[in-house]
């Protein structure tokens, strides 16, 4: 296996039993590699298999066919599960339902306690982790007094304390207000840039994907598209066909193009504004 590939899914398939007892394939022979230190966004509908994929990546689920490799470790090898979960941290959708501790400090300690870290070392690692998410002043706060964005940052601190290589955000911004979403995204972007943590952001907000190194589009249990955000979002019609939206700037440019106004391809809103202004000036 390539040294640079931190995570690899090799022909992974997974099936759920629905309420009627019939088997529904959720993932069909998915191949995917994720490079160390990269920021990957996974887009897709509900039921496209993106959450299942996340759970396969830290051995919460085991593949029925194929292999999931985390830093070279096969998730189906039972004795490696704890090491894999230390490597791959997960932030879930509902901020309330993933905080175990009665105070922020207790919650950050939870993962360390599970790992059997020496209590003398714990203090330092908790302080470091809280500093890395900017939540030091809340060390003794009770979780229910925090905002949604702050709770997700505490959840991320709990993972950071375990010194992971990958953080998977499983729709972690879906229940947050715009400000909370910004807080969390800025934080993970910084962790990715400064601490070299690989980030996998599973989301259905295309806007969140524009800053990533790679975008993976899931549809009906398969990887529909994979590549840099520019390449993926350029295929507006193809994304539309599976009911997925594109970032606002891309959509607007596409609509303008349909009206005969041609602009260069852009991902970010500011660039589009720039182009439109320039167009207006030169006309």
């Amino acid at each position, binding site marked *: 296996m390539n040294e640079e590939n931190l995570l690899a899914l090799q022909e992974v398939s997974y099936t759920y039993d629905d309420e009627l007892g019939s088997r529904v394939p959720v993932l069909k022979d998915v191949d995917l590699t994720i490079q160390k230190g990269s920021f990957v966004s996974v887009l897709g509908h509900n039921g496209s298999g993106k959450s299942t994929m996340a759970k396969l990546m830290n051995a919460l689920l085991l593949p029925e066919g194929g292999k999931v490799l985390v830093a070279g470790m096969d998730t189906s090898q039972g004795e490696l599960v704890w090491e894999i979960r230390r490597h791959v941290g997960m932030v879930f959708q*509902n901020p309330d339902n993933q905080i175990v501790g009665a105070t922020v400090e207790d919650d950050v300690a939870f993962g360390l306690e*599970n790992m059997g870290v020496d209590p003398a070392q714990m203090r330092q690692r908790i302080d470091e982790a809280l500093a890395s998410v900017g939540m030091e002043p809340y060390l003794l706060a009770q979780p229910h007094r925090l905002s949604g964005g702050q709770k997700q940052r505490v959840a991320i601190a709990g993972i950071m304390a375990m010194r992971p290589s990958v953080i998977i955000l499983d729709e972690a911004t879906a229940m947050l207000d715009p400000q909370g979403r910004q807080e969390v995204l800025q934080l993970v972007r910084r962790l990715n840039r400064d601490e070299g943590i690989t980030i996998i952001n599973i989301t259905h907000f295309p806007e969140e994907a524009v800053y990533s190194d790679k975008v993976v589009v899931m549809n009906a249990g398969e990887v529909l598209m994979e590549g840099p955000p520019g390449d993926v979002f350029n295929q507006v019609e193809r994304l539309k066909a599976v009911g997925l939206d594109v970032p606002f700037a891309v959509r607007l440019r596409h609509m303008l193009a349909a009206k005969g106004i041609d602009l260069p391809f852009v991902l970010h809103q500011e660039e589009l504004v720039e182009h439109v202004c320039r167009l207006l000036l030169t006309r």
Partner: protein
Amino acid sequence: MLQNIAIGQYVPGHSFLHRADPRSKLLFIILFATLVFLANNTVTYAVLVAFTLYAGLLSRLSLGYILKSLKPVWILIVFTIILHIFLTKGGAVYFQWGWFTVEERGIQQAIFISLRLGLLVVISSLLTLTTSPIDLTEGLERLLGPFGRIGVPVHEIALMMSIAIRFIPTLMEETDKIIKAQTARGANFTSGSLVKRAQSLIPIAIPLFVSAFRRAEDLALAMEARGYRGGVGRTRLHKLAFSWRDAGIAAAGVLLAITIGWWRA
């Protein structure tokens, strides 16, 4: 409306009792409860009352908090007093009206038994008033540790308690939301007969249960994702440590036991 609830009845502070180890406080209460039942004359009761007053002073809590703890049991105490005055016979007769008498033993027992109840409630309230629920859970887990060897799931029980403590405010907020949502749909929780009002709680309880189960499922997944695998090989952030305060509590316990043993009839 349910925003500022205190969990348990813990009152934060830095007194001697606040800073003592929860284990020694728990053990002391067991001893104290035994001694309360061994006391059987004026001297022993006086010693216990004096000691409880002193402990109250040590907690540096206002008298109001301590008296409030007696509120749920005062009916029981009054009832005990009446029963003993009227029904316990023996000794000098103080009052007679037909077959009905109030006798010496009755008065004595009324005082002793109500004191017994009151002392137990006050001393255990001093524990819950000066110990945070988290510390209490941790103390219990450590004290019950040895029972783990005979198959009692001590770690699991302690974890359940601390998760319950963690989720009380969350579920309170949720209840509040559900009440508002159902009120907005025209539900009426405040009028009608008792049966009607009890029935009107069903539309609150059911959504609350459904969401509590969903939360439990999410939490279990999140715990697993963070490498939870039961109590084996687990370390703890908070190390409970005995200090001179606990030595003091132990000494007080021994002294009290000797005094009661010596003076009891």
